[in-house]
């Protein structure tokens, strides 16, 4: 379980998160929506410790992410993360991209690491691309590679940071299908997304971020179909039309 309690985060004088409370249970899919600059991506960066927080607490499976004693490298093994930019490792083949972390971080043998990588790549539909270099693949394929690369670490949670925002429109579908598949596998996921339709369809909970706070949170029917806050309504009318 991921527990986020009263998290405040600033960049210099700019307070980006102003007291966030959120709970994500095992198996849940939580979508985070909101305008740009609302702090939703920052929250993901805080959850896996890439960013510090100034106040509050984030606890992942009873481990305080920002406590001094916490080994964040270790913690990140159970928090898979996929970014807006896919960041494929250009010097490695598709198979090596996915096998790298299991081999180095989990100290698996080359054979084992390759086996895990093959499975995950096949799972996301890249079974015929093992020996390809990422530079020869489309954005959608590279993003699926990024997902498989994270899955190869067998994480308990997956954090998705606007994973379709940098894609050409015709490639968005294949990546969303991959996320749907993960949900069906029972993966616990936090998706920061601009795909409102997708959020409504797959989420157990939707959180609407506005100026560093969660303005509204609840089931997708409630937040997206029947928002009670004016700001939520305004935001939705902008993105849905």
């Amino acid at each position, binding site marked *: 379980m991921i527990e986020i309690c009263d998290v405040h985060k600033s960049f210099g004088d700019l307070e980006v998160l102003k007291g966030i409370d959120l709970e994500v249970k095992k198996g849940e899919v939580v979508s985070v929506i909101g305008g740009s600059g609302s702090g939703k991506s920052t929250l993901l960066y805080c959850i896996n410790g890439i960013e510090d927080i100034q106040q509050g607490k984030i606890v992942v499976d009873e481990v305080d992410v920002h406590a001094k004693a916490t080994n964040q490298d270790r913690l990140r093994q159970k928090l898979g993360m996929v970014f807006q930019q896919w960041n494929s*490792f250009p010097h490695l083949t598709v198979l090596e991209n996915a096998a790298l972390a299991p081999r180095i971080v989990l100290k698996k043998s080359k054979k084992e690491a390759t086996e895990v990588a093959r499975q995950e790549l096949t799972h996301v539909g890249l079974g015929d691309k093992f020996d390809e270099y990422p530079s020869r693949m489309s954005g959608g394929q590279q993003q699926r590679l990024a997902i498989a690369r994270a899955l190869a*670490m067998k994480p308990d949670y997956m954090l998705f940071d606007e994973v379709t925002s940098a894609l050409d429109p015709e490639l968005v579908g294949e990546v969303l299908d991959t996320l749907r598949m993960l949900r069906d596998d029972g993966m616990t996921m936090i998706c920061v997304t601009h795909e409102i339709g997708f959020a409504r369809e797959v989420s157990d909970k939707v959180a609407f971020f506005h100026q560093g706070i969660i303005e509204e949170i609840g089931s997708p029917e409630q937040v997206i179909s029947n928002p009670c806050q004016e700001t939520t309504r305004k935001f939705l009318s902008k993105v849905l039309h």
Partner: protein
Amino acid sequence: MGSFFTPLSWHDAPFILTGILNTIYISTVAIIIGTILGLMVGFLRAESNRFTNVLMGGGLDVLRSVPLIIQLILFSTYIGATGHPLDPFVAGSIVLSLYTMAFMSEVFRGGFESVQQPMQVAARSLGLTYWQTVRYIRLPIGMRAVFPSWLGVALSVIKDSALVSVIGYMELLRTSEQLISRTQQPLQILIGVGFFYFLISYPLSLYGKRVEGKMVS
């Protein structure tokens, strides 16, 4: 009465070969040490704040701006004046390695900096530690990016090694100077020596082309 000058003959081959081998020897040492030190300094420069960078940059600028021949003479004279003169090979290797390091460090710094922050964050998000990210992501990606520049520095070190002759190291240029003063056949000998430098450098250049070709595919 026989002439004081004797023409070039096959008996001079071992002498020339010594020169060739010594050129290869000192160049290899300088390239290897210069690369290792350059990697470390280049990494430090890519990771350091502005203040440390200005300090390091100053030192490197001196090494890069003062002509190598002056550095060689100053260093070996200074060491000689302390009463513990070094073997010309050792003195030459030290100066040539540092000189090489100064150029290599800038090349490698560029390489490390070419790997953008998001790529590093992506690697860290997979659980890689800082040093694992350096070793498996930044180093290989960065070094590929700067390989052509590295090769350029390495090739010029081979040619610059000729200057070590001024402190008495018996490399290719110095052997040829001695042969010229004995044989008075400067044209043939210098053409030959130029050809030998080409023979030493060309394989490295070919190797570079092959590696680059591999990286593109």
